[in-house]
C-alpha cells in the first residue's frame, strides 16, 4: 500500500533497509547465538545518521518526527529486533532530555548521541516497580551541590553499553506521584555500576542489566526538568516511544511473512508447492491482512503524534498493542507454515517467534496499554 511518504522518509527507509539487508541479516543468527551486543552494526548505523533521526537539527540531528523513527525501526525490526531494541532504547534514553531537559543539558548530551559517539539508556523498572511505577524504591537526595542516588534498576536495555542513562528516582516520597524526578547518570559516575548481563529468551543481541546505585553522587544540574516532574516526563517519553516498539513489530512480522511465503512457494508436498493448498494460503493471507492493518494504524498514530496533539496516549497505546499482538501471532503462524523446519534454528522464524514475545511485555505490557485505552474511553464518554 502507498502511504505517501515524503522524499526524506523514503531516504530513511532506503538507508535503514540497506543497513538491515547488508549488515544485520547476515549477522543476526550469530549475535543471537552468542548473546553478542551489535557494537559494529550500531556504529555503522551511527555513521549513516540513523541515531540523529529524532534529534533536532540544531544539535546535529535530522530533526525527524515519530513517523521517521517508526520507518527506520520497521526496517531494522525486519532484520533483528534485538539490534532494533538496542537502537530504540538509545532514543528512549534521550527522549526525557529532549522533552524536559534544559538547553544546557540538550547541548551537552544530544550532539554526541546524534553522532553515535554515545549511547543512551532509560532506567524506570525495578524489582517491585514494573507496571506499577509507584512502587519505585530508588531515591535521590540533594546533598549540597550533589544528588545522592541509592537503589537498583532492573532489566535496563543498553545497560553496560550506554554512556548516558535517564533514571527515575523518588526525590520526595511524601508527594506520591509528584515526588518522582528524572536525572541523568553517566557511565563512570562514582557509586554507579551495572550488573551482569541477563540471559533472555529473545532479543539476545541487546544488552539487559541492572543499574546499581550505592551512594552514587552526581552534580545538581543533572536533574531533568523540574523536581517532581519525573512521572510526567516518563509518560510523555513513553507516549512518544511506543509507536517505535509497534514498528519493530511491523518489521518482525514482515520478515516472518517473507520467510513463510517464500518457503511455501518452494516446499513441495503431495506433488505441489504448499502455497497451492488453501489451508496454507489462508494462513498467509491472514498474516498479510493483519500486518497491513497494523501498519496503517501505526503510521496513522505516528502522523497523529507528529501533529503534536494535547493527548496522544490513546493512539500510542492502541498501536503498540495491536502491532505487537499481531507480530506475535504472525511469527507463530510463520513457524506453523514452515512446520518442522520453522522450529529449527537453521531458519530465522524460530528466533523471530522467541523475539516477538518481548514486544508484548516491554515499554508497558499490552495489558497496561489496554488500561490506558480503557481509561481514555472512560474519560471521553464521561464528557458526552
Amino acid at each position, binding site marked *: 500500500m502507498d502511504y505517501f511518504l515524503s522524499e526524506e522518509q523514503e531516504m530513511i527507509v532506503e538507508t535503514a533497509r540497506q543497513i538491515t539487508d*547488508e549488515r544485520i541479516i547476515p549477522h543476526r543468527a550469530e549475535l543471537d547465538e552468542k548473546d553478542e551486543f551489535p557494537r559494529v552494526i550500531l556504529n555503522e548505523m551511527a555513521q*549513516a545518521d540513523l541515531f540523529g533521526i529524532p534529534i533536532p537539527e540544531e544539535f546535529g540531528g535530522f530533526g525527524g518526527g515519530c513517523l521517521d523513527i517508526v520507518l527506520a525501526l520497521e526496517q531494522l525490526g525486519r532484520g533483528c529486533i534485538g539490534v532494533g531494541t538496542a537502537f530504540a532504547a538509545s532514543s528512549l534514553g534521550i527522549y526525557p532530555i529532549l522533552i524536559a531537559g534544559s538547553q544546557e543539558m540538550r547541548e551537552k548530551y544530544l550532539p554526541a548521541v546524534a553522532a553515535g559517539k554515545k549511547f543512551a539508556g532509560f532506567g524506570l523498572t525495578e524489582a517491585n516497580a514494573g507496571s506499577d511505577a509507584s512502587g519505585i524504591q530508588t531515591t535521590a537526595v540533594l546533598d549540597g551541590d550533589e544528588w545522592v542516588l541509592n537503589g537498583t534498576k532492573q532489566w535496563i536495555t543498553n545497560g553496560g553499553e550506554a554512556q548516558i542513562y535517564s533514571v527515575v528516582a523518588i526525590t520526595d516520597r511524601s508527594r506520591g506521584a509528584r515526588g518522582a524526578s528524572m536525572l541523568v547518570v553517566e557511565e563512570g559516575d562514582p557509586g554507579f555500576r551495572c550488573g551482569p548481563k541477563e540471559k533472555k529468551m529473545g532479543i539476545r543481541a541487546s544488552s539487559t542489566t541492572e543499574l546499581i546505585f550505592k551512594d552514587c553522587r552526581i552534580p545538581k544540574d543533572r536533574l531533568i526538568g523540574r523536581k517532581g516532574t519525573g512521572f510526567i516526563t516518563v509518560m510523555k517519553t513513553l507516549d512518544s516511544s511506543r509507536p517505535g516498539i509497534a514498528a519493530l513489530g511491523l518489521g518482525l512480522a514482515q520478515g516472518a511473512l517473507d520467510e513463510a511465503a517464500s518457503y511455501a512457494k518452494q516446499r513441495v508436498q503431495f506433488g505441489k508447492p504448499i502455497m497451492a493448498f488453501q489451508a496454507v494460503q489462508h494462513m498467509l493471507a491472514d498474516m498479510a491482512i493483519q500486518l497491513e492493518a497494523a501498519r496503517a494504524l501505526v503510521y496513522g498514530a505516528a502522523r497523529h503524534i507528529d501533529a503534536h496533539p494535547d493527548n496522544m496516549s490513546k493512539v500510542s497505546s492502541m498501536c503498540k498493542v495491536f502491532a505487537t499482538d499481531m507480530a506475535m501471532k504472525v511469527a507463530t503462524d510463520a513457524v506453523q507454515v514452515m512446520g518442522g523446519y520453522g522450529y529449527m534454528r537453521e531458519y530465522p522464524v524460530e528466533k523471530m517467534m522467541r523475539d516477538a514475545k518481548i514486544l508484548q511485555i516491554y515499554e508497558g505490557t499490552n495489558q497496561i496499554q489496554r488500561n490506558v485505552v480503557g481509561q481514555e474511553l472512560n474519560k471521553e464518554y464521561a464528557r458526552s
Partner: protein
Amino acid sequence: MGRELDAMKIIVCVKQVPDAKDVRLDPKTNTLAREGVQSIMNPYDQHAVEEAVRLKELLGGEVTVLSMGPPQAEEVLRQAISCGVDHAVLVSDRAFAGADTWATSYTLAKAVNVIGPFDLLLCGKQAIDGDTAQVGPGLAMRLQIPYVTCVQKVRQATDSGLILERMMDDGYDVLAVDFPALLTVVKDINEPRIPSLKGKMRAKKVEIRRLSAADIGADPACIGLPGSPTQVVKVFPPEARCKRAVFTGSLDEQIVQLVDSLQSYL
C-alpha cells in the same frame, strides 16, 4: 601539480557499469543485453571512493569524484557524494562514444588537468564490464606520475606520501610512494560505508560540474572511436565443454574407472 599545505586533494575516478547480477548475453547478437539492466557504480570504484573519504577523514582536505560517461552517469557521482565525497565532475560528450582504454585515459587526463592540482588519484582495479585494468595505469602514464596497482591496504598516510601494501599472487609487497601518485585498489582494502542520510540529502542537491570535449581541450582525433586503436570485433560466450561419463559396475570398479579417468587429465 604542486601541493598546497594542509589541503590534501584527492580525485577518484569511477565508472557506471551494468549490474553484473543482471547481465546476460543476447544469444543472437552476442552483445550484452542491457535493456532493463540496472546500472551501478563499478564495485572496485566503490572501494576507491571509500578509501578516498577515509584518507580525507584522516588527513583533511577534499575529494573530487570524476567520471566519463553519458548524462545518466550522474547517478554514480551522486552516490559518491552521499558517501562523503565533496565535489563531482562528469566528462560527457557524444564525441567520447566508443572510447577504448587508450582514448579514455587521454580524456580523463585532460579532465584531471582542468580540475587542477591534486595529491592523489584513486581508481578501482578494473571495471567489471570491460575487465581491462588499463585505465588507471594509462591515466598515470599520461599524467607522468608514479602509480601502484592492486593496493590492498594503506598502512600509513602522511602529508608527503603513503606506505602501501600491493596485493600479489603469493602475498603482498610493501611500497612507499610520494604524492602526487595514482593507486588502483582491490576490494580487500576496505568495506564501503552505507550512504548517510545527510550525505543523501547533499547528493540530491549538489551541482555536478559538466565538462565537454571542448571544455577539456581534447584533440578530436584522440577521443572516442577515432582515438581508439582497439575495437571489439566480436563478443561471444565460450563454448560449453562439459563431458559426461557414467561409470558402471561394482563400487570398487567404478572407483578404479574414476581414478583412471582423472589421471588421464594429469
